């Protein structure tokens, strides 16, 4: 069966259509779903779109910046309130992909895709859904149980601004330069107070089926000065409690071997 496309003017109408249509998917930028459709994915036969302008809004709020789920990587890069996200948005694909790929789609991307989501995870973003009031869910909870949200439409992602931009760091490691698929992606958010790290957050992409937190590393960093001894300890524990994935880009063994090295380079500011 050819894929059917249904377009709605409002997100609410799209959300109710999504709920009432079996084997339908919500269509954002197309980089994931058109690919699946091109390859004859049998798991869906309907694509649901929304032309709702609010879907593409970027709005500053007291809590942070609210990014509509339909905002593209290119629009993030171009927006002055989101300059702290440029390294992560820039890491996604080439210019054509960045013109198409959306924030919402990135949240649902399976490894090795989903680089932006690693940054959103480490910054403690909050996910808001269409047709569901309240505060939505923390991104960590969303990532833990993402399949449960398959039938919902993400309306926006609210990202807290890092108080000190330099406390957020991001690196995507790939074999192809300057741009390739992620071998692993690391984001760190290490706010400091009195010289010590308070509330360390470290997240990886491409290490598991979806972005995940490196809690062992966070525990080691918390309350410490970011000196070379701390960095060495963090690098040594980079893979504690994590079983990296094997895919066509790298084996689990390889990822385990190199993640500490890249974490150390990121923390020491060694960009090569």
């Amino acid at each position, binding site marked *: 069966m*050819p*894929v*059917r*496309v249904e*377009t709605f003017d409002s997100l609410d109408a799209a959300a109710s259509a999504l709920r009432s249509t079996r084997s339908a998917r919500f*269509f954002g930028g*197309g*980089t994931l779903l*058109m*690919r699946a*459709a*091109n*390859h004859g994915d049998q798991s869906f036969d309907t*694509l649901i*779109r929304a032309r709702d302008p609010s879907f593409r809004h970027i709005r500053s709020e007291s809590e942070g910046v609210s990014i509509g789920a339909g905002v593209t990587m*290119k629009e993030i890069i171009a927006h002055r309130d989101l300059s702290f996200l440029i390294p992560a948005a820039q890491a996604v*694909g*080439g*210019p*054509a*992909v960045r*013109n*198409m790929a959306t924030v919402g789609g990135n949240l649902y991307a399976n490894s090795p895709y989903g680089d932006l989501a690693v940054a959103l995870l480490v910054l403690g973003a909050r996910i808001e859904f269409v047709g569901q009031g309240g505060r939505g869910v923390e991104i960590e909870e969303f990532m833990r149980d993402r399949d449960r949200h398959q039938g919902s439409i993400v309306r926006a992602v609210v990202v807290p601004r890092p108080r000190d931009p330099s406390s957020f760091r991001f690196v995507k490691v790939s074999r192809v330069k*300057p*741009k390739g*698929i992620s071998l692993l992606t690391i984001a760190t958010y290490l706010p400091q107070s009195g010289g010590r790290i308070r509330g360390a957050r470290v997240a990886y992409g491409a290490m598991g089926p979806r972005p995940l937190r490196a809690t062992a590393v966070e525990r080691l960093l918390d309350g410490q000065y970011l000196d070379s001894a701390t960095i060495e300890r963090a690098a040594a524990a980079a893979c504690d409690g994590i079983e990296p994935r094997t895919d066509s880009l790298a084996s689990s063994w390889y990822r385990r071997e190199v993640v500490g090295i890249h974490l150390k380079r990121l923390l020491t500011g060694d960009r090569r």
Partner: protein
Amino acid sequence: MARKPLQFQLNGRHQAVFTDDGQNLLDLLRRGVGDLTPKYGCGQGTCGTCTVLIDGEPHLSCLTLAETVDGRQITTTAGLAEGAELHPLQTAFMDNFAAQCGYCTPGMLLAAKALLDRNPSPTREEVVEAISGNICRCTGYEPIINAILDAAGRRNQRRYG
């Protein structure tokens, strides 16, 4: 199968066509309109050879739902030359031996055009970034980068010289 009417500008000319439900823009351009210059390389957004410009910005036509281009302006490699006069990028690609098998060339040209239209004097790094979504398996990229820089230089010379 539902077919939807669709109107857009292709290389400055008005097109009114029907699109099949779920059809991607690459298929529509090639089989529906007969513009064979965008190529199929992967169908998954990794090779860039299907790149077209939509309202001046590079997009992957294989991942673009055809019906979403209603009312928009599309540029393909078929629209680069003006009559018999090649676009400076085309000339520079020839002069710098930037095409070997030629299959990535249409996508490369459009990625480069999008860059130069926005940034007439790019650095080498900016050129590399602009074509980072386009794969070439023949040249090793150097002649392509050189050609784009060459074209930028020539265009500026023509404009200001």
